């Protein structure tokens, strides 16, 4: 029987919704027992939230002052030790999980499967490669622990109302001091979070300046949407790096995605393929973004957007 340990992602005492998406993925494995590990200096609040996810049996609190910040080099030996009784160890395919899980796998002497998008069985999964230009079916060995990351855009978060138990777990692992957290700068925007928002408005290079990019924010606010950007817009300094959508930015699956002045390079499209409805506004009718758009409008964004805002009231 599959026993799956999911590594919780959290910040400031809040569980990241990516964890509940990992639970959904894990629960698609027949008869799986699903536990969640919360590594923190004080895991209490997060553990309570994790225990309430439907389908979670046990929550392991792994508490240590060194776990205050999520440093992969510090967390990995503890996760590897906690993984002893499990057949599978899953983490989200976020920067947290991508940083941590391969280190866990290597400590366990096994490979890692990245970005599970579909479960076929306990040892057979599907995942995207080549920026989503191909989807492969991969079989993992039955006789080895499977360490994997879960592509969060492919799974809905598991519901709440569960009643898992919460326990303190002691793991014996030597923790390195060679890696130290200094600071994290997160723009507090007061807007919906890009990764979980149901609506996203993104701007591209066409915006031309950080100042012009404000019209993206303004439209997003009208729609109650999060703001995203293409790599070109981020590189040019029009938008912050954490707004980048795509192969090397965030992979998102909103109900509505509005791409404004974005050409639709394959690296960008891979980040929005799972959006329910894609709207594209671009002055070039031949732009590849129109190949994936559900609703396309050819026009100059600097005239279209003010009109659109007006129409939205």
């Amino acid at each position, binding site marked *: 029987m599959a026993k799956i340990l999911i590594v919780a992602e959290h910040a400031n005492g809040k569980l990241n919704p990516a964890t509940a998406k990992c639970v959904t993925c894990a629960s698609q494995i027949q008869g799986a027992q699903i536990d969640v590990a919360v590594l923190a200096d004080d895991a209490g609040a997060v553990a309570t939230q994790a225990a309430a996810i439907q389908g979670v049996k046990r929550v392991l609190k792994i508490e240590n002052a060194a776990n205050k910040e999520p440093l*992969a080099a510090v967390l990995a030996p503890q996760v590897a030790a906690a993984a002893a009784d499990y057949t599978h160890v899953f983490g989200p395919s976020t920067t947290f999980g991508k940083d941590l899980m391969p280190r866990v796998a290597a400590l366990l002497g096994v490979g890692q499967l*990245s970005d599970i998008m579909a479960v076929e069985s306990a040892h057979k999964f599907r995942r995207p490669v*080549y920026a989503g230009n*191909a*989807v492969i079916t991969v079989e993992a060995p039955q006789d080895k622990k499977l360490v994997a990351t879960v592509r969060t855009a492919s799974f809905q978060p598991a519901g709440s109302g569960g009643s898992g138990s919460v326990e303190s777990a002691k793991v014996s692992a030597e923790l390195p001091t060679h890696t130290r957290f200094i600071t994290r*700068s997160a723009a507090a925007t007061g807007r919906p979070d890009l990764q979980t928002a149901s609506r996203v408005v993104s701007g591209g290079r066409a915006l031309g300046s950080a100042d012009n990019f404000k019209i993206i924010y303004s439209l997003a606010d009208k729609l109650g949407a999060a703001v995203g950007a293409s790599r070109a817009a981020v590189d040019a300094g029009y938008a912050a790096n*954490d707004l980048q959508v795509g192969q090397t930015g965030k992979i998102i699956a909103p109900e509505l995605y509005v791409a404004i002045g974005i050409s639709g390079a394959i690296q960008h499209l891979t980040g929005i393929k799972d959006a329910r409805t894609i709207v594209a506004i671009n002055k070039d009718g031949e732009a590849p973004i129109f190949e994936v758009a*559900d609703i396309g409008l050819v026009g100059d964004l600097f005239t279209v957007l003010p009109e659109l805002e007006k129409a939205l009231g």
Partner: protein
Amino acid sequence: LQRALSLTVARRRPAALHFHTSLTEPGVSKILVGLKRVVDYNVRVRVQPDGTGVVTDGVKMSINPFDEIALEEALRIKEKGGASEVIVVSIGPADTQQQLRTGLAMGADRAILVQAEGQLEPLAAARVFLKLVEKESPQLVILGKQGIDDDNNQTGQMLAALWNRPQATFASKVELDGAKARVTREVDAGLETIEVDLPAVITSDLRLNEPRYVKLPDIMKAKKKPLDTIAIAGLGVDAGTQFKTTKYEPPAARQKGIMVKDVAGLVAALKQKGLL
């Protein structure tokens, strides 16, 4: 305190002591850079009709874009006096020499080709890098954050684990300070800065730098730079595969959309979908 700290670390791990001493000697600090040969990022990759792979015949191959950035960073560190030698490493078939020559033309001092055919998983690549690390004792290994072919994003983290050294992944800024590095990382929440003791593994993100263009005279000069080839079998690492890919499929196609003429049309279409 710093001194005491590094001493305790050193006592626990003899290997670390060795690296710390080697760092104090000028002229011996090396940077190892991984260059993976991948299908060029401009190519629209297609799945073979029989589902056994993607079409690679006659397709342009290049250095993985993240690895060019990794190499550029290594070269800049060297140019600022932070390293004495930049070594580019690739694991792949004989043709991979082309990418290594490009790396040499960009400015690397020498190249190592670990010749290997067929599928190579990140854990195997990390094991190969560990062998070379043991041989070369670099102060830094800079890899790309991910290969744009398999999109794995694993090798650097695995190498750091096997080597028992720090990892600073998704780097957008690297500042060396003696036996330490301060690295700014692109994380989902924004930017995170960590400090790591050297030696360490860094993986590059897109905004770390903009790689230089190769000039013709450099290409000529690169032909004379050393490129050693070693067979993967000779390294004594377990390079076997653990995962089996049984099928390649094209991604699910999206339904064809509609074009609207103006803002009124757009608003109407959004209303029809229940989005307004």
